[in-house]
């Protein structure tokens, strides 16, 4: 019985998804109800997760294939809350495009379910199942605005490339299984000694698959197109939530079975990290579409998060988790601004559309400026602390090259963030945008901006929450 109690959040979520699906089919015009119920489901799941599992030290279930510990509980709660915020601010956008349908929240819920399974996994097969569940839901979400060619193209691109990477990942899993005789992380860890080099191949393939999911360079090619083509609310989801799950799998996969092989994978991660940071910074400079720009900036930010993982220490991993949490917050604010740039039922997403925003909408421009400075990592905003913790752990491992390249790429990245600020503040104003945004959109913008702005007053709280993660 205790076993089931611990996976109760997942069970509750899957039952709710089925129930909502049936409700949606039988009741006409029920998209609003489904939306609200989904929000409730997300919150309830988060609360259950918090109540049932947060205090638990480490429990393995179902023949050790699922692990419940502090890392998984924390990441699941972050995922659920982030999804809640995404859902709550996307309804206006969906209504404008007349795609406010029952499938949207249900697909999001199923992908969240997949992510929760990924986060829980202590076994390659369970991990792969979760990954596919979330990916399949995401493919459909990318094409959600199916009357638009760009959206369909995005979905198709995502599907083809993602399937390829899943194939590589699966091949890696099979290699590891072949050489260790098990798919369980703990058994693998015990079987390492004999065939280290063969296993390295497996690790490389799996890392390729994971790097693809988290959009790290050089497996990032899908990200800009998909981010640009998908509906903005889906892009918001893409940039935030799957990264949390992928990062926690990264951590679990590298730290539990393969920590002894750190010499083998550390170089790969350092490369992924440096390449992402530099490429994200440089490629974003030439962009004219805001969503594309966000795609490149998110590639860069993934690089910083991976830098923490690359250290192979508890501290580094914790700093990555802090980074991703703060990054989610900043992205939420950024996209809230994007969703506010609406005029007569049309959304504007070119960089030039920001022009002179500070004259027409001073508060919106101010919030966006705070968020952008924070993304650039300028103190005393939250984004600086995120980078600070990561580089602190990196330097403690004497990985100076990574630290210096990372910090220099923040300077390059600062350029394009500054360019946005310049356009908002220094350029001539254009027509005004609508101001009748829903309560939740305003709420999420205010909420994220204030947290970013005043994070420096209470920086230890987040650290305390995260420092309880301990998986080595």
């Amino acid at each position: 019985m205790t076993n089931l109690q611990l996976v109760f959040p997942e069970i509750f979520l899957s039952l709710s998804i089925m129930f909502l699906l049936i409700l949606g089919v039988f009741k006409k015009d029920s998209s609003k109800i489904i939306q609200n119920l989904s929000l409730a489901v997300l919150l309830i799941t988060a609360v259950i997760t918090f109540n049932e599992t947060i205090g638990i030290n480490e429990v393995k279930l179902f023949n050790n294939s699922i692990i419940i510990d502090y890392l998984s509980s924390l990441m699941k709660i972050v995922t659920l809350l982030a999804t809640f915020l995404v859902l709550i601010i996307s309804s206006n956008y969906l209504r404008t495009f007349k795609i406010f349908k029952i499938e949207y929240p249900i697909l999001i819920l199923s992908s969240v379910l997949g992510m929760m399974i990924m986060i829980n996994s202590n076994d390659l097969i369970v991990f792969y199942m979760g990954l596919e569940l979330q990916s399949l839901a995401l493919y459909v979400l990318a094409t959600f605005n199916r009357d638009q060619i760009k959206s369909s193209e995005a979905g198709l691109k995502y599907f083809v490339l993602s399937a390829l990477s899943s194939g590589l990942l699966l091949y890696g899993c099979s290699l590891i299984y072949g050489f260790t005789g098990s798919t369980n992380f703990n058994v693998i860890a015990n079987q390492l000694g004999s065939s280290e080099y063969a296993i390295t191949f497996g690790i490389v393939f799996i890392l390729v698959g994971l790097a693809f999911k988290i959009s790290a360079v050089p497996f990032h090619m899908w990200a800009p197109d998909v981010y640009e083509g998908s509906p903005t609310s889906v892009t918001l989801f893409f940039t935030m939530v799957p990264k949390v799950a992928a990062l926690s799998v990264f951590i679990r996969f590298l730290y539990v079975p393969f920590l002894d092989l750190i010499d083998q994978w550390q170089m790969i991660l350092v490369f992924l990290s440096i390449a992402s940071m530099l490429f994200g910074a440089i490629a974003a400079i030439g962009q004219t579409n805001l969503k594309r720009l966000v795609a490149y900036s998110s590639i860069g930010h993934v690089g910083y998060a991976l830098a923490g993982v690359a250290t192979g220490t508890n501290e580094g991993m914790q700093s990555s988790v802090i980074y991703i949490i703060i990054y989610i917050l900043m992205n939420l604010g950024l996209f809230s601004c994007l969703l506010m740039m609406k005029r007569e039922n049309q959304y504007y997403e070119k960089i030039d559309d920001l022009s002179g925003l500070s004259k027409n909408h001073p508060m919106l421009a101010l919030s966006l400026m705070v968020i952008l400075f924070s993304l650039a990592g300028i103190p005393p905003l939250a984004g600086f602390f995120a980078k600070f913790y990561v580089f602190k752990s990196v330097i403690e491992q004497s990985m100076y090259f990574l630290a210096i390249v990372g910090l220099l790429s923040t300077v390059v990245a600062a350029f394009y963030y500054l360019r946005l600020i310049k356009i908002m503040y220094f350029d001539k104003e254009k027509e005004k945008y609508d101001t009748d945004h829903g309560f939740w959109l305003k709420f999420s913008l205010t909420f994220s901006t204030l947290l970013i702005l005043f994070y420096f007053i209470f920086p230890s709280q987040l650290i305390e929450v995260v420092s309880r993660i301990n998986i080595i």
Partner: protein
Amino acid sequence: MNFPILSSLILLPTVGAFFLFFTKGNKKNNFTVKYVALFTSFVNFLLSIYLWILFDQSTSDFQFVEQRVWIKDFINYKVGVDGISILFILLTTFITPLCILSVNNSIKERLSEFLIAVLIMESFMIGVFCSLDLVIFYLFFEAGLIPMFLIIGIWGGARRVYSAFKFFLYTLLGSVLMLVAIITIYWLTGTTDVIELYSLGIETKYQNLLWLAFFSSFAVKTPMWPVHTWLPDAHVEAPTAGSVLLAAILLKMAGYGFIRFSLGLFPAASEVFTPLIYTLSVIAIIFTSFIALMQEDMKKLIAYSSVAHMGYVTLGIFTIQQQGIEGSIIQMISHGLVSAALFLCVGVVYDRMHSRLIDTYGGIVSIIPKYSVLFMLFTLAALGLPGTSGFVGEFLILMGAFKDNFLVAVVASVGVIIGAAYMLWLYKRVIFGKLINNDLKKMIDLNRSESIILTSLAIPTLFFGFYPDPLINTIEVSISDLIETYNFRLASKM
């Protein structure tokens, strides 16, 4: 002392900015907005004077220290002042109200936002000068970029975007290496507390790289040749009040950093790199003085003269002589007053004629006599005429330099002559000569607020020129202690 006077100094301007944030609006409010800002900064000035009165000059210990846990087991919020930092705080709180007073004519739109930026800037700068933790220092040091970027970018001249970007990216690039160094120091010693680090010391073998990392940040900020090129651009495009803040206070953060961190934490490395600093300083003094001689834009000329003056400052600091460092600090204070005044002087004629080119002017001595007198005074102070504060600083620096290295001192002294040449020539071309441009005849002399600003800058310039004792007494003990520790560390190879 339970009253947290330093935190109040840091916070007060921000609180004022917060009020301004809610009082912005129509044209009518501009009046209120300005007086709220002025009031805040003036109260802050009085508070800092009070701080100076309470300050105990007989000890080199940090005073008014406040400590609070900020990030558990890692960083404490710790502030305090000693003889070295207190003068910079005074300078900041003194210049800011004058800046706010000067916006009358130059800032036409978005006044309340401008004042918010200035006040927040003040908070950050005071924070820089009194933080006693490396991370806190870095936080304030970097955070100052945001308001300054906006000040240049929003209210600047024609090429403001280019200048704002150049300013921001140059400084950021210099600073990130300092961040690496700070984290490394934490990793080596387990603390970022400056007082603790002073007593612990840092192993010699690490010092050189750490020193260079700090240097990269301070050199850009100072600015030293050859990374000075952002300064003329930033100055020329910034609005008058922005130039004043930049020249009077922002540049001093680096000089302060050199004394507090480069000398205090890395004595062995400072000894190694002294020739480098000497070379760069001397090049800055001679080379930029010649460049200044060639300028046609008044603001650019003063900007280059700032680079030259800061060359004296870095030279003085690294003589590691009592006179040299004292001279550097006094030179920084004096330059803070004089360059602020000179930029304001340029601002005065610019507001009337909308030209900064020297060619535009000439022969205005009979039209605006009051202005000409004050401009004369500051010109002379800038070239270091005895009786002005500029002389005291320059003289002490050269004295220190002669004790340490004769050749460098001789070359630096030559710089004084070129300095006199470009300043006097500027004055001659602007004020004297034939009145050719007929538009100039319509110019009106200083109005009330301009007179108040320039006079209040002239008084300390003259006062400290004749009687620099209050300044020297304040810094003396701290500096002799600093040098003593420095030499002790050097002798014991720490």
